[in-house]
């Protein structure tokens, strides 16, 4: 589903080159639920933005659902993002001027979907996240957990092949976080491929597989005992 081979991302200035990702390799199979962990600044979010075609990379290869994406133009990348990828962000990233219904409608509008189908999908997505009664509410009128559920509904409405979640419970209290996590697990059970970046060991433990990033590279924790103290126990989660 998602395969990066020897991928690198370099930020260049006149005096320095900074590698955010270096010789980065990952292979996420269809239907997997993968947690990506690592310390701050390790390159987790950069990996996620490249995986979501929000950013280009400097070298290597990236195949998404069998498509080599490195040479695609902006239109093609946008279309793939719209049709194949759903995003869930830590800060929810709902558009404050749009109500719940209109927020969920945004990706469907860009897909050029007809109004009747858009409505059906939005109502289905809202029902799935348990917010059917809040369709006309604005984000500011919802709790953090509800906002994240709306964001998940927005990601689900387009029936994406891949869900990319960046610290999806980072801004939520424990109870709300648990609810959101259960929802993600339910979505995964229904067949979605999920790649989730997180700091939270408890959250990572709920994934099928953990990938740990340090200094822009995927590391095998079994071979890097010095990192065991910081990481969740991936062996028991595989």
């Amino acid at each position: 589903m998602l395969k990066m081979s020897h991928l690198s991302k370099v930020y260049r200035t006149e005096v320095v080159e900074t590698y955010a990702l270096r010789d980065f390799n990952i292979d996420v199979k269809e239907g997997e639920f993968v947690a990506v962990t690592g310390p701050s600044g390790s390159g987790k979010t950069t990996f996620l933005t490249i995986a979501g075609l929000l950013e280009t990379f400097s070298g290597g290869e990236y195949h998404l659902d069998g498509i080599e994406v490195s040479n695609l133009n902006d239109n093609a990348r946008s279309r793939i993002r719209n049709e194949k990828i759903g995003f869930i962000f830590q800060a929810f990233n709902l558009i404050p001027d749009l109500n719940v219904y209109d927020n969920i409608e945004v990706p469907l509008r860009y897909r050029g979907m007809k109004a009747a189908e858009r409505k059906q999908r939005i109502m289905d997505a809202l029902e799935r996240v348990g917010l059917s009664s809040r369709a006309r509410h604005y984000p500011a009128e919802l709790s953090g957990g509800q906002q994240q559920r709306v964001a998940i509904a927005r990601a689900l409405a387009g029936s994406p092949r891949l869900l990319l979640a960046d610290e999806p419970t980072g801004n939520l209290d424990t109870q709300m976080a648990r609810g959101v996590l259960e929802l993600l697990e339910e979505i995964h059970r229904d067949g979605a491929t999920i790649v989730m970046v997180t700091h939270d060991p408890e959250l990572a433990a709920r994934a099928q597989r953990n990938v740990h990033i340090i200094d822009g590279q995927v590391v095998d924790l079994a071979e890097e005992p010095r990192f065991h103290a910081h990481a969740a126990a991936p062996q028991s989660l595989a």
Partner: protein
Amino acid sequence: MLSYYLELALRSLRRNPALTALMVMAIGFGVAASMITWSVFRAVSGDPIPDKSARLFTPQIDGWGPQQNLKGEPADALNYTDAMVLMRAHEAKRQTLLYPVQLSVMPGGDRDLPLAANGYAVGGDFFAMFEVPFEYGTGWSAQDDHARAAVVVISDQLNQKLFGGANGVGRTINLGGHDYRVVGVTRHWNPKPRFFDLFSTQGFEDVSDFYMPFTRALDLEMRTDGSNSCRGKLTFTTWDDWLQSNCVWITPWVELDSAADVARYRHFLENYAADQQRAGRFDWAPNLRLRDVVQWLDHERVVPPESRISFMVALGFFVICLVNTIGLLLAKFLRRAGEIGVRRALGASRRQIYTQYLIEAATVGLAGGVLGLLLTAAGVPGVGLLFPPQIARLAQLDLSLVALTFAVAIFATVAAAFYPAWRAAKVQPAWQLKSN
């Protein structure tokens, strides 16, 4: 998607009414200033006879010489001698001489008082040359010219006054104490500027009441009601003295269909002036001009300088308004960088973001156009404060000006939004989402 973009645009404009009002006012005032001054400039600088302006020429022959002419230019009209030579030679397809006359019209009946009427003494070709539209009848024939016939063409206004708007053709009217048979009634016709008589007018006069044969006017020794210009000692006392003087008062026009015809006519004029030099009447080399309508309007400086200056100032003001609008749009668009990042993440391409913001700018332009139209409607009657009355009344808010107001407002605002929208489309979604 257009309806979606419009929906987003209206939502965005409502979100910050003060900023929206500021932009709409900038566009509205800029457009209104431009349209008000344009309405004057358009009226005074347009081609009054676009279909034929390149085929109508007014010949000028220098009958005064380098000591007496103005900066080497021949006079703007002809004296009787030269004018009649051109007429009799008949070297052009159509030709006319003309000068303005004023006569009293007796409406008929005992109780009616005479009306003062302004008109022109013209040749029979005048009507076909200048495409004068007729309500009833036609102009007169060449035979009428030769016969010095007592015929007249009257305007629809005079026809209304004399005959209540009924067909006046065949009726007789009394002009200056002589009876004339009406052969034609024109529709409203008053080309602006009045290109065919810039010697006696500024180009923006009221409609002429009548047209009578040039030959008939000469027979009746009718003095010009327009300008005349003479050089040297004025010794004439009789009509014949006046005709033989060097005073210029007659405007000639010829219709020439091709470049070859123009060259041939120019050659004819050169030969004539050379003959006059050889005969000793001209003590100078041939000095001629043959200008078409547009060249003639330019030569006569028909467009008042204040019209051009006020239009340029208004355009400058509009440009300043647009520059301010660019700044406001840039601030408005980039303040929504976070939203742009989200939309990009959800599948919007750069082109879609660009289009969305251009359409938002177009709605600002449309609102600016509405305000501009209201201000233009309010401002057009105030043109009289800047221009003489005969020019001020030419400024009119017609359908074409309404359409132009909207087109300029929308096009200018969209053009002003090119850069802000481009910057919005270049927002890096990854950075925006990371910063959130």
